[in-house]
């Protein structure tokens, strides 16, 4: 049996932070840690993973892997698992990672714990903690098949540097162009100078209390001062003030930044589902009874139109 594998999440060489979170977590288990990276040409990234403890880096290279596609990636990873028998394989709980892990799990007729927020791996046994009912309860589950498969929520595990050998392994290529069944027509990146919502250290969100695009501008100004991502409640998304991909909550994104600032958001249960596990929470709301204050570390009962501009001035001092 050969240790813990971490499936790297990258696009055009931009590695998602959750990859480092998973590597750091895998290192704690004590077993051999391997990063598995797919792409057209990825060997050059190996040293990046070694920095976070990867003993081995499986560089899976070829034109067919240039962009994530379920068919080729699953065929290849299944062949590698058969050849190298890892104890556990961890994926990121992202758009691609969820698809990859679920399809692979079914191909192997195996169990899979998705969106895990804590991992316990020992002697080939894998127990995972998952938030269920949108974070209103917690389930501990054991994956009873081998290898142990899981997807990991971004932002919950600490990144720690630790030197690994990063020895590059070039596995035999088992996937062919015939395995590809999705024809990717286009990928249009969201143009934003701000960090990705699920990766940001700080998130500033605006709700209906922003009253319109002008209020959202105020929220954005604060976000930019903090190098933060901007998010919103469903009310501000449905009003068209922010794009749908910025919705935080049960039917939007789940975020766990270091600091979450909710401005003009009441704190409906569906919104709390997406942000209540943030490390620090601040709320600005005119209603002292707003439920958002129940989960806030620091709440101010005040008008966001007055508080945020002054806050920006104070922070710049």
């Amino acid at each position: 049996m050969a240790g813990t594998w971490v499936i790297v999440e990258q696009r055009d060489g931009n590695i998602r932070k959750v990859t480092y979170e998973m590597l750091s977590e895998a290192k704690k288990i004590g077993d051999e840690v391997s990063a598995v990276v797919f792409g057209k040409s990825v060997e050059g990234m190996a040293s990046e993973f070694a920095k976070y403890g990867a003993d081995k880096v499986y560089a899976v290279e070829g034109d067919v892997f240039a962009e994530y596609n379920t068919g080729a990636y699953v065929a290849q990873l299944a062949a590698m698992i058969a050849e190298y028998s890892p104890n556990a394989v961890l994926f990121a709980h992202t758009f691609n990672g969820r698809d990859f892990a679920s399809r692979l799990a079914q191909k192997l007729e195996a169990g899979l714990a998705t969106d895990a927020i804590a991992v316990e791996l020992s002697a080939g046994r894998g127990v995972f903690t998952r938030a269920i009912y949108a974070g209103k309860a917690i389930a501990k589950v054991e994956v009873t098949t081998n290898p142990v498969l899981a997807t990991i929520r971004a932002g919950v595990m600490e990144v720690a540097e630790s030197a690994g050998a990063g020895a590059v392994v070039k596995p035999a290529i088992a996937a062919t162009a015939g395995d590809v069944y999705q024809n990717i027509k286009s990928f249009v990146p969201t143009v934003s100078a701000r960090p990705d919502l699920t990766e940001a250290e700080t998130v500033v969100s605006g709700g209906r209390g922003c009253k319109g695009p002008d209020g959202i501008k105020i929220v954005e100004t604060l976000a930019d001062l903090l190098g933060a991502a901007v998010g919103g409640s469903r009310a501000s998304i449905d009003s068209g003030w922010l794009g749908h991909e910025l919705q935080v909550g049960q039917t939007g994104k789940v975020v766990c930044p270091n600091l979450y600032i909710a401005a003009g958001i009441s704190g409906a249960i569906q919104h709390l589902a997406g942000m209540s596990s943030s490390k620090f929470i601040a709320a600005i709301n005119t209603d002292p009874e707003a439920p958002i204050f129940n989960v806030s570390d620091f709440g101010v009962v005040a008008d966001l139109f007055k508080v945020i501009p002054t806050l920006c001035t104070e922070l710049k001092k």
Partner: protein
Amino acid sequence: MKVLVCVKQTFDTEAKIELKDGKIADAGINLIINPYDEVAVEGGIQLKEKKVVDEVVVLSAGSDKAMDAIRTALAMGADRGILIKQDTGADEYARAIALAAAIKEENPDIILAGHVAADDGSSQVPTRIAEILGLPHINVITNVEIADGKATCTCEADGGTLVAEVALPAVISSQVSWNEPRYPSMKGIMQAKKKPVTTADAVAADNKVKIIEFAMPPAKQAGVKIDDEPDVCAAKLADWMLNTVKIEVK
């Protein structure tokens, strides 16, 4: 063409969760169609209205109570339902096996589902169904165009918008922003009572994931709340951000 929609019955998103004898208590909880699946049902009905398909079938696996979810979908405008009786403790693997077996018999051209269930939040079942049936799967779609035996889907991917095309039959999972589900009309509710629903037992399959325990999340400590002049609030908040959270200002 025929579209089949997988609907899971879930707790109302407003429901308060409590544990009873180590399990999630379901007494008195209002049950609804998983919000993503409601969007998928609406998507299926709209395909029929546009004459892309001529039949909308809804499929649910669960207890007898899941009949309510099927009837709601029928009241929205779906044509008929299938209830697969299965223990609600079935995991994603066992559910996918049971649903895929029923789908295989129906042989639909398009299989719609939600991309995640609001209760267990797994995001696995549609992908697993696609693998079992050897079909393509496209996830988190916000739009779909059906033409020439192909589905062209717009998806909310990480960091951008992806447009991907697959050959039919295919499994397609919805994001909530795809559409605004209609409310069943009074007439729809009456008609739904007469629409056919067949029931069958689930194909047996063992779970691959075992629940060890359920717990409640750690209770959040009540924090500071200040109610003062805006300038005072701003100064105190800035102080907290700089000295407690230790944020860096760009």
